[in-house]
């Protein structure tokens, strides 16, 4: 496991470095810039702009700005946010619990939904149930998240008044029940598109697996139908699915941007939207590193989990 982690990080480093250069260049190519917000304030004079530019180091040549950032990161210093002057790492870290809570809940729901739907859909291939599930998942994929999110707010918070429309908690200590209330809508909205995508992916894999000779053999041996489906067909199908699911999770952890923004959920995605709008370069660069680590971690977990599910992979990794 340790060796695997070292190998993965080693392999990813050159890529992260390359991407960071491109990302840095792109960020600085965006029109606007961190001082854009100051421009429309009538109190801010040109002298103030020049002073703030110097203070943020924005008056230096771009390559120098990049190298300063890079050397900082190597030393473990991710820089300071242009917006509130606090350390970037701290700003990212404080958002992690909220995002893990949301993504964890959302993806668990998605998994709970996607598994049975995929099994039913593959089992009843080209029959009514399959068509209905595929149509629903196509709709789930096609509906933009912000639309589903606003619709959910409208129905469950405004019309029915069952759930709070947004936020992560009331300010008074509301206990676990209260906290869960706030989680329900964003988690479901996040789950919807994932259920759609995952059930389709898993269905396709299952359809292939169900046609394999070992499944036929298991059936011929008289195995109970659901045991055959779960143990002989679903388990091998989960191996490729797991990689996809974990990578999705990694991407979401580095920003369930739309869901978090609409639901005012104080996670990484909301921070990203805010940082992008204010062109907070250090925080945005921090996101790049965070995302890279999340993807690497997801890959390692996927490798380990694959080994657990598939003895052949385990042998190869050992």
């Amino acid at each position, binding site marked *: 496991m340790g060796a695997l982690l070292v190998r993965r990080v080693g392999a990813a480093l050159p890529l992260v470095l390359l991407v960071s250069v491109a990302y840095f260049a792109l960020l600085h190519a965006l029109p606007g810039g961190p001082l854009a917000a100051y421009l429309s304030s009538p109190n801010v004079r040109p002298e103030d702009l020049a*002073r703030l530019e110097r203070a943020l180091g924005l008056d230096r040549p771009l390559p120098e700005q990049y190298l300063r950032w890079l050397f900082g990161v190597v030393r473990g210093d991710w820089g300071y946010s242009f917006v509130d002057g606090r350390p970037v790492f701290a700003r990212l870290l404080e958002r992690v619990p909220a995002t893990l809570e949301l993504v964890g809940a959302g993806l668990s729901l998605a998994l709970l939904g996607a598994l049975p739907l995929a099994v039913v859909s593959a089992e009843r291939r080209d029959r009514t149930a399959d068509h209905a599930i595929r149509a*629903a998942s196509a709709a789930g994929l096609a509906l933009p998240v912000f639309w589903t999110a606003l619709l959910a707010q409208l129905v469950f918070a405004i019309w029915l008044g069952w759930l709070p429309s947004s936020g992560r908690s009331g300010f008074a200590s509301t206990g676990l029940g209260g906290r869960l209330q706030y989680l329900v809508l964003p988690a479901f909205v996040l789950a919807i598109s994932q259920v759609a995508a995952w059930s389709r992916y898993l269905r396709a894999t299952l359809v292939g697996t169900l046609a394999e000779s070992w499944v036929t053999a298991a059936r011929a041996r008289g195995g109970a139908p659901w045991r055959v489906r779960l143990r002989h067909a679903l388990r091998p199908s989960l191996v490729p699915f797991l990689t996809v699911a974990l990578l999705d999770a990694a991407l979401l952890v580095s920003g369930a941007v739309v869901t978090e923004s609409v639901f005012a959920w104080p996670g990484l995605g909301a921070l990203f939207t805010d940082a992008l709008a204010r062109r907070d370069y250090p925080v945005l660069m921090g996101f790049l590193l965070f995302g890279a680590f999340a993807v690497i971690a997801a890959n390692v977990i996927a490798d380990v989990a694959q080994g657990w599910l598939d003895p052949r992979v385990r042998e190869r990794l050992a």
Partner: protein
Amino acid sequence: MTRRGMHLALVAFVALVAACGGGGEGGGRDAPRTASGRGPSNELLIVGYDREPDTMNRFATHILEDIQTCVVEGLTVTDEQMRVIPLLAETVPTLENGLVTLRRDGGMDVTWKLRPGVKWHDGVPHTAYDVQFTVAAINDPKWNPESTDGFDRITSVDVPDSLTAVVHYKEVYAPYALQFIRGTLPKHLLDGRDIDQAADYNRAPLGTGPYRVKEWKTGEHVLLDRVSNYWRGDSLPAIRQILFKFIPNAVTRVNQLLAGEVHVVALVPWDRAAAVRAVPGITLHQIMGNSYEHVTLNQRRVTAFADVRVRRALTMAVDRPLITKALLDDLAPVIHGPIQPLSWAFTENVRHYPFDVAAARALLDSAGWRDSDNDGVRDNNGTKLAFTLLTQAGFTTRETVAQALQRMWKDVGVAAEVRLVDGTAISGYWFRGDFDAMLHWWHMPADPELTLFFAKDRTPPAGRNINYVSDDSLTTLLYASDRTVDETRRKALLIAAQQRIAELAPEITLYNVTRLDAVPKTLQGFTGNPTNAGIFWNVHQWRIAP
């Protein structure tokens, strides 16, 4: 897919669309039912706020200071009529009351008499030494406040006694009364410290105001708690806690209002006004703003705009009453210049350009712009009268108005192409002068200074003259007004400047940016405020009626 499968999908889709489509008006039909909401009370008022502050330090923040004004008070404040009134000062210094004196060397001295008995929240008295320290801190290059405007003209501050600060300016500075509108810094807390790094102060500043910051939960909210020994008296403020919830999405903000989860939403978007009006228990408070929507015509970029006849024709081609009536539900009054009606320097007595298509066409003809090739667009020596109108994407009202302008100009043979740019990016374009025409607004300062926007030497980066208007007589008037402290004389200069601007028609002024704030019907003492002081300027007077 089988026919039955398709039917199922279709039914599901139609049901979803119907559910969503019915939503626009539905929210307000019944009283809000809510999972977590409770009505506003003198115990707790919840505000849906559009963004998280960068810092609570009033001098360093670059967004509106709503939350900060509840905690940190200025020596003066601007009220709902934009009048400067004393707050921690006993009176506003003027020439008449002898607290402002002009020196022979061209400088001026302003004497601030502080209100006695005011204490910081930690019990330490608020004194003139705090005023002196504030000036020193802002002028110290080690700290980075948002603006040093005015402070950089102060040579020194004398403190003859603990409640008197005499501020010496090296030149006459007309907006001196607003110099300490953002308050003062507590010397006993911050002296000798690096203020950029003073996280305790920047996250929960020590103030003299009716509230203190109890909790700032990053990404979620700021909770303010009433102070027990407010200088106006122990009975104030009436509301015990104010919770500012950060809700960046405008639709979500209004949804929270509909669901009863927030009680106040400042700056309601105009296109949500009807939905908010329908919410039971909520009043949509409307007040004239200090910003004006207009089309900037970049004379440096589009040579046709350098001709005053073209600028006037483009103005007369626009049916402003129709725009405000049809597109803005009469929310925004048509205005004719950059100083807004609430300002003491405003004059209505300037040249107006009524909607007159025939006159606009005649003006363009006389300027040599005719449609020689009958393609519907005027031309002159092979150049088409065509330009790009830049405006902000995602701002529904503005996108619609841009399209209306495009249509109206087309009627007089002018081709405008609308280009939408995101909000952060747009300032980069205007700052570089990299646009033809732009539909936008300026938030004007509470002081009616126009120099920054119209003096010929204040083009970027030295200012915001992005019309690139270059007029000697206007520039002279503007600089003279900056160096006049006598309000009557200054007003005369600013009126002459407004009249000159109207003659020049450097930009097409459209309408005043009305401020809409949603507040509970039971909230007493609320007045609104068009300036950066924000609606919380008199929060100590707010009370929820039983």
